[in-house]
């Protein structure tokens, strides 16, 4: 490289090899917000957060929501760092446990920080999680949204009001919401910095069947309530938030979606083939690599179904026969294999 060409005789922009001149160039970049944004969107989140301390300008630039949207679009596949596990029973001394997936030395942030928050005489359970946020239920009706990484939390106001039919069910273990009920967190940082909490309950009475849906928006910090005629069939308990909607199925083979933004409940009858088995046979229902998957156990094996893009039918992707494997490894019990297998154990054998 020709050093002479690098030198501007007027001395306005001198960039060359020596370090003080080089610093001048970085400063120019530092003062050019457009380029700074281009660079910082490419820096992994962990470091970007640290750079908030550089100056007030950097702080407001990084805290700005279009920036964080861009950043999370560019770094979509953050690895899972661990699991939070609800206690099996609801005795008071049992807490939510956590397991780090990056070895025993990398401890996860504790989930016990909101303990004792809210009306909390009941048990503390995690109801749902979405993109790093947890939806917790403390006691029968007190919902808390928390971010274990920042250790910040928000106690949601009581949702009551119009949903008078909402009654928590009691059993001998304590207070639980009925199995027909579920709380879901709808959060997509690539689209909006705000989240929504959706409560879905299925009510059957003399007037017929309907779904009561309560939606909390972190933007308006208030609840809205809606009631929609339930699609036919008793709903499956397993529901999943994916792609802006909550998805579930019913025993009448109707596929149900609740579009969170449009606040619209859609039921789509599914073709009879491939057959959707009863809920106990579902091993997995959720998102994987941008597709909605349903894994059903059946006859010493399992099959993986993928939802078609327009939510009109399931496509059978794989059928796995475990018979040969079970004959090789007789310690896998055939019964557990069909009904409620430890998928992890099976995968270990497969690998």
């Amino acid at each position, binding site marked *: 490289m*020709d050093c002479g060409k690098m030198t501007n005789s007027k001395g306005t922009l001198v960039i060359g090899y020596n370090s003080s001149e080089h*610093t001048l160039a970085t*400063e*120019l970049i530092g003062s*050019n917000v457009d380029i700074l944004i*281009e*660079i910082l969107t490419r820096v992994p989140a962990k470091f970007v957060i640290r750079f908030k*301390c550089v100056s007030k300008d950097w702080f407001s630039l990084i805290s700005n929501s279009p920036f964080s949207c861009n950043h999370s679009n560019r770094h979509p596949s953050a690895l899972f760092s661990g699991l939070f596990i609800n206690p099996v029973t609801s005795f008071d001394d049992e807490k939510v446990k956590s397991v780090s997936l990056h070895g025993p030395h990398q401890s996860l942030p504790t989930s016990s920080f909101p303990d004792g928050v809210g009306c909390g005489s009941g048990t503390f359970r995690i109801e749902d999680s979405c993109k790093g946020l947890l939806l917790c239920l403390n006691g029968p009706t007190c919902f808390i949204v928390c971010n274990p990484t920042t250790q910040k939390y928000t106690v949601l106001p009581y949702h009551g009001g119009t949903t008078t039919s909402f009654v928590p069910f009691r059993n001998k273990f304590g207070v639980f919401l009925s199995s027909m009920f579920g709380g879901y967190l709808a959060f997509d940082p690539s689209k909006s910095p705000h989240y929504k909490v959706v409560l879905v309950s299925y009510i059957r009475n003399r007037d017929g069947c309907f779904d009561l849906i309560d939606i909390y928006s972190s933007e308006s910090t208030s609840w809205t309530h809606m009631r929609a005629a339930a699609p036919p069939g008793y709903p499956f308990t397993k529901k999943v938030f994916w792609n802006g909607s909550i998805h579930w199925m019913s025993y009448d083979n109707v596929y149900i979606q609740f579009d969170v933004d449009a606040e619209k409940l859609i039921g789509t009858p599914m073709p009879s083939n491939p057959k959707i088995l009863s809920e106990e046979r579902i091993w997995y229902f959720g998102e994987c690599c941008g597709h909605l998957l349903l894994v059903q156990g059946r006859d010493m094996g399992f099959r993986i179904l993928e939802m078609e893009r327009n939510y009109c039918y399931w496509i059978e992707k794989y059928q796995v026969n475990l018979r040969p494997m079970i004959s090789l490894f007789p310690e896998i019990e055939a019964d557990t294999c069909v009904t409620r297998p430890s998928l992890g154990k099976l995968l270990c054998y497969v690998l």
Partner: protein
Amino acid sequence: MSSSLEKNMLILRSSDGEEFIVPEVVAVMSKAIKNMVEDECASNTIPVPNVDANILAMVIEFCKKHDESEAEAASDLKTFDSEFVNRGQEALYDLITAANFRDVKELLDALCQNVAEMIKGKSVHHIRIQFLGYQLFEILTSNFIWNIWCDRDFD
């Protein structure tokens, strides 16, 4: 377009007056130049102010490679990109300014990625010196409270 020029060739003139003859397909990888060509407001010589011959030569080299290697394996291009940004280390910030100003997306991508790699492990202190040198005095004096908060994170 001048008759002495081959068809689909353009002349780019750097800020220090040097001229480069480049195929139009290569030149229009800069969106700024593309807009000029499409609006037909470009004569046969296109001035590229603020970019000197040295930097312009590097930008053209990058664009040529990217234009040629459309059919080539993506991995080859990646190797080229990483060698290019490393070789251009001294002129890195000049190149970024040029790529941003002339709107050459591929080059801006490669360069910003490189800077991001460079700064990602750096301390806040280091970043301040590098990027905010001239403001550092002001930051350290006028924003006293801010600094108490920030200095927790010094490493």
